[in-house]
């Protein structure tokens, strides 16, 4: 996040804390799409994801006054969205089942670390095929709102783990995209 974006976040939080309605609407308008996109990567059902989004906003509005570092607003928002989505999923599956790695990392191959993804449609399709463990880290990376440190904070893992997980996730995504044609999938 640039300095300008960080100040924007602080200003927005400050205005929201003052109870400015336009600021609250701006907050929602700015983040509703990325948050819903992120939540949809956890939950397939549209109705349920909207419900999770609503719960997320309720928690955000309740906790906004207690937010200690307003400049870290995006990380905080994603963190709340993740926790809310996971609590919904946990009601159905165990944590182990949730984060079981469906993709075999060892089979992903190596392309020298130059994994560029240009086709949004393919990436969108490929993300759905990844394991939740890879999907969540890659979604946060593609949404570009957070630094690696912030992604680590959201996922509650060390930065080193984020880096390695991201590396494996990108390779897994490349393998999926190389192996399947989304237009026929």
């Amino acid at each position, binding site marked *: 996040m640039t300095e300008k974006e960080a100040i924007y976040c602080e200003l927005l939080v400050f*205005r929201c804390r003052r109870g400015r309605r336009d600021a609250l609407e701006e907050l*929602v308008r700015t983040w509703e*799409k990325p948050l819903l996109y992120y939540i949809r990567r956890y939950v397939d059902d549209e109705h349920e994801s*909207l419900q999770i989004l*609503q719960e997320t906003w309720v928690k955000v*509005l309740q906790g906004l006054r207690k937010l200690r570092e307003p400049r870290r607003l995006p990380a905080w928002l994603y963190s709340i969205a993740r926790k809310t989505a996971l609590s919904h999923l946990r009601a159905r599956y165990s944590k182990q089942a949730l984060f079981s790695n469906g993709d075999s990392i060892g089979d992903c191959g190596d392309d020298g670390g130059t994994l560029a993804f240009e086709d*949004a449609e393919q990436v969108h399709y490929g993300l759905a095929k990844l394991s939740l463990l890879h999907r969540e880290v890659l979604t946060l*990376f*593609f949404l570009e709102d957070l630094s690696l440190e912030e992604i680590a904070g959201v996922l509650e893992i060390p930065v080193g783990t984020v880096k390695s997980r*991201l590396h494996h996730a990108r390779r897994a995504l490349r393998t999926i995209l190389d192996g399947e044609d989304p237009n026929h999938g």
Partner: protein
Amino acid sequence: MDKPNEGLRERLLEMEKMDTASIQEQIQAVLEKRLSVWQRVGVGLLAGIGVLVTLRFVDMLGWSFASVRLVAYPFAWLGLISGVAWVGLTGYLAVRGRLGRRIRPWAVAGTGGLMMFCYVVVRTLLLEYELIRWVPNDWRAKLYEQLALAIFFMLVLMGLYLILRVVCRMEFRTQEKLLGIEYRLAELAEKVKGADSKP
């Protein structure tokens, strides 16, 4: 770690079909607090109390406050106006059952507080006035002194509240303006940096 390709974020967000109308509806629901039936009944009762207090103010305006009229009448008028506003706000809230969008909690609390403050002031003045009327002359000076003290206390209380409110608002505004300036400076720095990097 490499950054994803330029514009991929926006293209990805476009990939997700979003029912914006439904989202907006949900957001409105979050921003507005829906009152339960019992809460609406409670607010309705508060509106009823407001009607009684407002009628009392109307009645008070017909009284002769004699020597305290210069202080009592303005407070009685202010009380009447805030009473009407209070009845309007709480009545609308009880009927509509939603708090947040058009009616803010601070507006309801502030109007109610002002109404009750005016009521207490006028009642205190009246009590003192009645006491003055019935006591012997040599006690009157002391009661006048008490009355002046009571008025002074009420005015100081109100003034203190207003000053604190103004100071708080000014502090918030200054802080907001400073952040705004900081934001514009960062924006400018980014533009200069961008211009410098161009060949």
